[in-house]
């Protein structure tokens, strides 16, 4: 395996690598949001009546809501009426194989280094590639379906498995949940659906690549993963986006459901365009991610490495309903230039003997602002609940900021809750020590930061861990010195 320092050398000289635009005709609805737009989206997708009604209910609710301003992030008002809510690469029919995929699209995947062929042949990873808003190719589906695993685009799931979708859609994040989740519920375009049947252990990591491509198109993904009793799945989400001058809104919703003794491991590497060094452009990433440990002895782990986006607003959470269920949150968030991140988690303990672990590593450089915001809530009936939280912040330079907002609510006296927090400046002494041994400043910084994040990286699947280290190294280029 290549060391992170090698990656740094290789990548230090590059600009944001994934900043290119593919010229593909888009089938878009006109800008703005109203009932007609929602009806049109639903019609394009040939959705059943109940789903359209659900969207419209959400829209109606959304009209009464106001944008939250409590996160410690600062950005101009978003004009929701100037956005385009649906765009899809023009496809003539359902695609059966890669041969049928638009060659431009395939080239884009090549540029991203995620050639589906290669992926199929080499990595054993099934990829549901989301290009803008429509899934264009899904691989390994046959192999997975032998085991009864359903892994497909959300639209396909609505058509092929309406009962499952109807049963679980909105069951973790209801359409009325919050401003952005409600907006998503009204206009979501596509996403991924995954169902692991009873007693099945997914033999491979399931992976989706997201990419925002059409100018001015907000992307509203919807992901739903259901792990039935005694099942296991590891899901990877990796993101890149092309360079844009306008800010782009991304308001995704991810819902996870783990039944008795089921386990879901959800890993994210997020590298959307963060804006330039003056804070111009970049993605607004307002995401609602929540998992319900509905069954006893179930487990949900969130691992995220967040290096991109101009603004990140994201709290992957666990609702620990089942007795003895376990929730985990491992996070690395890096902000530089003018990036802002307000991220953390919520662990809600409802069942008995529920346990949760939170490890958060925030790195701020340049004028970056990094906030950890986390809630640990122990409900009255959560006898014997335990939580351990550790929030470490690292500062590089003297113009950045790190903030920690831990909220703890305990309604049961048997609970054990521990919280540790630290803030440190990257040590000049550490850098000098490494340089004295012959290591360059940039490699030294990369090494120190990767060491700082190690507890999180070791939770990532191997190939993702490498990518995460790469991302950190690129992102840190020129941050100190």
């Amino acid at each position, binding site marked *: 395996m290549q060391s992170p320092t090698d990656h740094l050398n290789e990548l230090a000289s590059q600009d944001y690598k994934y900043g290119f635009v593919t010229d593909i005709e888009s089938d878009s609805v006109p800008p703005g949001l109203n009932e007609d737009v929602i009806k049109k989206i639903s019609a394009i997708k040939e959705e059943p009546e109940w789903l359209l009604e659900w969207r419209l209910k959400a829209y109606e609710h959304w009209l009464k809501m106001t944008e939250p301003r409590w996160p410690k992030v600062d950005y101009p008002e978003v004009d929701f009426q100037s956005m385009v809510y649906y765009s899809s690469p023009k496809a003539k029919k359902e695609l059966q194989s890669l041969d049928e995929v638009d060659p431009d699209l395939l080239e884009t995947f090549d540029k991203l280094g995620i050639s589906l062929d290669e992926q199929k042949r080499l990595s054993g990873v099934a990829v549901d590639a989301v290009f803008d808003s429509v899934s264009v190719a899904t691989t390994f589906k046959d192999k997975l379906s032998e085991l009864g695993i359903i892994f497909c685009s959300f639209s396909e799931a609505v058509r092929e498995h309406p009962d499952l979708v109807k049963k679980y859609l909105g069951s973790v994040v209801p359409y009325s949940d919050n401003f952005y989740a409600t907006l998503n519920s009204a206009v979501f375009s596509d996403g991924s659906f995954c169902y692991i049947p009873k007693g099945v252990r997914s033999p491979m990591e399931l992976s989706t690549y997201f990419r925002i491509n059409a100018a001015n198109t907000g992307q509203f993904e919807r992901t739903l993963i259901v792990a039935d009793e005694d099942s296991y799945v590891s899901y990877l989400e990796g993101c890149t986006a092309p360079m844009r001058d306008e800010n782009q809104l991304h308001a995704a919703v991810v819902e996870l459901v783990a039944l008795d003794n089921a386990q879901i491991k959800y890993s994210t590497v997020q590298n959307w365009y963060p804006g330039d060094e003056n804070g111009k452009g970049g993605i607004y990433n307002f995401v609602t991610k929540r998992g319900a440990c509905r069954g006893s002895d179930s487990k949900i782990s969130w691992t995220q490495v967040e290096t991109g986006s101009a603004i990140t607003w994201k709290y992957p959470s666990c609702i620990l309903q089942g007795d003895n269920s376990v929730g985990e949150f491992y996070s690395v968030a890096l902000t530089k230039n003018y990036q802002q991140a307000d991220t953390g988690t919520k662990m809600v303990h409802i069942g008995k003997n529920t346990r949760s672990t939170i490890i958060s590593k925030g790195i701020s450089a340049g004028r970056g602002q990094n906030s950890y915001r986390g809630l640990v809530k122990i409900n009255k009936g959560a006898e014997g609940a335990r939580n351990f939280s550790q929030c470490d912040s690292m500062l590089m330079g003297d113009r950045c900021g790190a903030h920690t907002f831990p909220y703890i609510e305990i309604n049961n006296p048997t609970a054990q809750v521990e919280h540790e927090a630290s803030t440190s400046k990257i040590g000049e002494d550490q850098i000098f020590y490494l340089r004295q041994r*012959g290591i360059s400043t940039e490699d030294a910084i990369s*090494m120190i930061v990767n060491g700082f994040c190690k507890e999180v990286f070791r939770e990532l699947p191997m190939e993702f861990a490498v990518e995460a280290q790469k991302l950190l190294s690129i992102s840190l280029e020129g941050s100190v010195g």
Partner: protein
Amino acid sequence: MLEIKELQAKVEDTQILKGISLQVNPGEVHAVMGPNGSGKSTLGKVIAGHEDYLVTGGSVAYKGKDLLDMEPEDRACEGVFLAFQYPVEIPGVGNNYFLRTALNSIRKYRGEEELDAFDFLELAREKADLVELDRSLLDRPVNEGFSGGEKKRNEVFQMAVLEPTLAVLDETDSGLDIDALKAVADGVNSMRGPDRGFIVITHYQRLLEYIVPDYVHVLHDGRIIKSGGKELALELEEKGYTWIEEEAANPAS
């Protein structure tokens, strides 16, 4: 190999080195002794290129090059090694991984082939045994949770792996018990040779019983006030630093 001429340096607004001249040839071991605050450690930091220390006068030539003009990492690649008085901890970074990266950047600088993980491990184990460093420390994060003695041994271990041309040992003996001291000294002695020079900075004569120097220099108030052979260290041990400071203050008496 190393030629220091009238070197002056300050930290913030305090002048620490006030004109030091010292020549180290290959194969020689120079001991630099002196009371606290005399500038011993500063000398080591300046040679290594620490940015907090501003050189205000004089020159340092190393293998014919201007050492002061080089970045710290380039000095290291050219064979300058500093064993730190207070080695820092680097959480989450494995000792092995760190040292392999260091060794390979030095080898790359010299146009040598990089060592793979297996070859490196073999080398690291051999050197760890040499300085009696517990092998289990190789897998642990750099210096994290190490005892004082383990940190110092780890410095000498790194020196043994990197094989510098000029090694500066900054109070490597402080905080060591007698067994650790012997182990460290054995490690250093095994590396003595015709191509390598040492500057051993120490407060006490004790270390010099084990690492016998060719020359001893006494530093006081930023200047070398007396130089001699190994017997000078014994004299200092007997009479203390005051004797020599008084002598320096009243050269006529």
